[in-house]
């Protein structure tokens, strides 16, 4: 009798895990598709400030279900992000895109549910060296889930590098991409 119960319990657990795995695969596929869509948006996006020769522009695109934050660390290891809008090396962030819902956002005037939702960091005269891009997912917006898709692009000297992926709620992915100029 005990063996039968164990067998049945095992079946339930295995079945549960299988269902969970299938769900995760499905969610990942959805995130991948969304990431690719966001990446294509960045492929067509132009910097909010006109590009000058030699400038460096980093953009992050994300959906309206999440408030993601873009962090860019310069070769001096100083970071520009929503709470520190500029660096000594000249980096500056365009604006902090937040959740659209709720009166708080409306008051701040920064909530924006219309895509493309793009945060941008620019260096007019970037210093040479290694740069790091990080993405944090601190707040869920309406419809937000445990993971959120993003795409980032780096534009410098007429070249663009793009990458898409996803981040987990309340986890700060410190190194999404590193590059040198």
């Amino acid at each position, binding site marked *: 009798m005990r063996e039968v119960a164990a067998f049945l319990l095992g079946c339930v657990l295995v079945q549960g895990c299988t269902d969970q795995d299938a769900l995760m695969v499905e969610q990942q596929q959805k995130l991948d598709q969304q990431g690719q869509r966001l990446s294509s948006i960045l492929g067509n996006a132009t910097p909010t400030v006109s590009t000058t020769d030699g400038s460096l522009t980093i953009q992050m695109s994300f959906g309206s279900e999440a*408030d993601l*934050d873009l*962090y860019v*660390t310069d070769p*001096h*290891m*100083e*970071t520009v*992000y*929503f*709470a*520190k809008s500029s*660096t*000594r090396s000249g980096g500056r962030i365009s604006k*902090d895109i*937040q*959740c659209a819902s*709720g009166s*708080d*956002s409306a*008051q*701040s005037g*920064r*909530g924006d549910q219309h895509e493309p939702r793009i945060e941008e960091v620019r260096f007019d005269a970037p210093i040479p060296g290694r740069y*790091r891009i*990080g993405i*944090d997912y*601190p*707040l869920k917006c309406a419809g937000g889930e*445990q993971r959120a898709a993003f795409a980032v692009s780096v534009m410098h000297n007429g070249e663009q590098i793009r990458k898409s992926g996803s981040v*987990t*709620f*309340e*986890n*700060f992915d*410190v*190194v999404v991409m590193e590059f040198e100029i």
Partner: protein
Amino acid sequence: MRAEYQNPRFPMSIFLFVSLCLPVLASADQFFGQVMSDSKTPIVGAMVTFRFGDPFQEKTVFTSEEGRYQIAGLPGSTDYTVRVRRIGWHDLVTDEVAVAQENGALDFTLLRHTDPAMVAAQLPANHWYGLVLDRVSSEYEREQLVRQCTYCHQQGNEATRVQRPVEEWHKVLSLMARMGGGLDAEFSAKIPELFNSAYDPKTAVPKLTKGFDQPGFAPPPSEIVRRAVIDEYQLGGRASMQHDMIVGHDGIVYSVDMATDHLFRLDPSKPDGARESFAIPSGDLPLGGFGPGGALPSNTSMRVGPHSLQVGADGDIWITLAVGNKLARFDTVEESFTIEDLPGGIYPHTLRIDSKNRVWYTIAVSNHVGMFDPATGQHEVIRVPARSFGEEVMLRMLPVFLWAGQYIDLGGGGGEGASLPVPYGIDIAPDGGIWFSQLNAHRIGHIDPDSFEITMIDTPFTAPRRMRFDSQGKLWIPGFSSNLISKFDIETRQFEHFELPIEPLGTETPYSLSIDPVTDDVWICGTNSDSLIRFQQASAEFTVYPLPTMVTYTRDIDFSADGGVWTSNSNAPAWQIETGIPRLIRLDVNGTIDLPLVDSVGSNL
């Protein structure tokens, strides 16, 4: 010659930029002179700072009652940048100075601030933070605010006394909670309004600068303080977090950079304050190591996270590797590391070494105290009592929560961090007993070093942090959120409190204290007020030594045999520090360390 501030209409920001680019060209190794106002009155207690070298060093002296200063022990044959600073006056930086006279005479004239906002900006962070604290009527909330919001950096400095949109505050609080500083949900919701109203310049500046044009405003430091000489040594870079420092048996100073996994070494006897660093092996650990997940600093390269250090009897340096869950031993002769894996616990924190050369250390996240005996290889991980059965269960499940948190939402975000008990400071009593604090539980504890039996004692004040025994076997404890130090008699179990005199009262956050092994003076970190504080036991007198660099967040103090009082600036993030780079700091109380014999000048000094 004289250096006049000649163009008061020149914008300050441009003035500073230009001046930092044009160092004083002088070859003297000592200077003297007078600091006067533009109305020809002496300025008392101004800080005169000479910067030189690469990586830089800064040496600061104070002006006397007659506004005179004398600075010696400079390397000579180098360029200097000079800054003269006094609250209420424009900083004077040396773009107006060309060459000092051959005998080293160099006078300065300062110009009064007329804009109250600029005066307010010169005040240490605690003055601004006092505006926030004044608005909190609940003692429970006030205590939370002090303890949790100043864990890693000052509150009220230029970078933190800002008004933000509400959503931005929520994100800041979320980051803070994921880095270990959490507020309860109800209080967290009040933070945006609280900070935005307190830091509104329209009300803050008039409050902070009331009577700023009167003589009693920001009084100069006392004559005793003005004898001091302060040396600051640049250490690391903008990503650095020089968490703790220690003075070795040979006078060499060591510091651990938690954010970059390096051990730094400074030889203050060398003319250039020779500095070098050693990468601590991290194996194949990922960024963040085994640390509790959530959020790391954006510019970190931390894989093992060296946190605290002590010198063993043989001169080796022992280091806790907080996020690597290891101990490191640095052989100062071979310049090599030995890494010791730990059998349990999460986040080894502060350590001490007992008379049997055993290493005792608090384990902050999982609520343990650990012991490692290098002679036998014995490890002990001692579970510290939780505050309740529920907390005990939660702590035991913590590894599971941390693992599961990677995959599912366990809640607790948005600034609602769990308040773990957090074993923190630790020290060894003269009788060999192990004493430690439990920061968030407001308790201290005793461990029998042989039986490992634990006794817990509630402290009649909040947030006991890093504590030390004096030569008489009395345990001194700083109350991080209670603005006091307390002397605890381990025999009678009695506490005796001494309130810190930092103005405005109640705004200091004493992170740590240490006992001068020669004088038994208690030295306290003025963590939120850019100061070091001395308490002389015999007279029960406090002396507050202001430190020259704005945003000097200190976490530990040690002493060199020549009488130097050492600390480090470990504000995290480093970019909030005035120059964006951490420093090792030596306070020479009487200004006698390393001073060459020179002719007497400035007789009133």
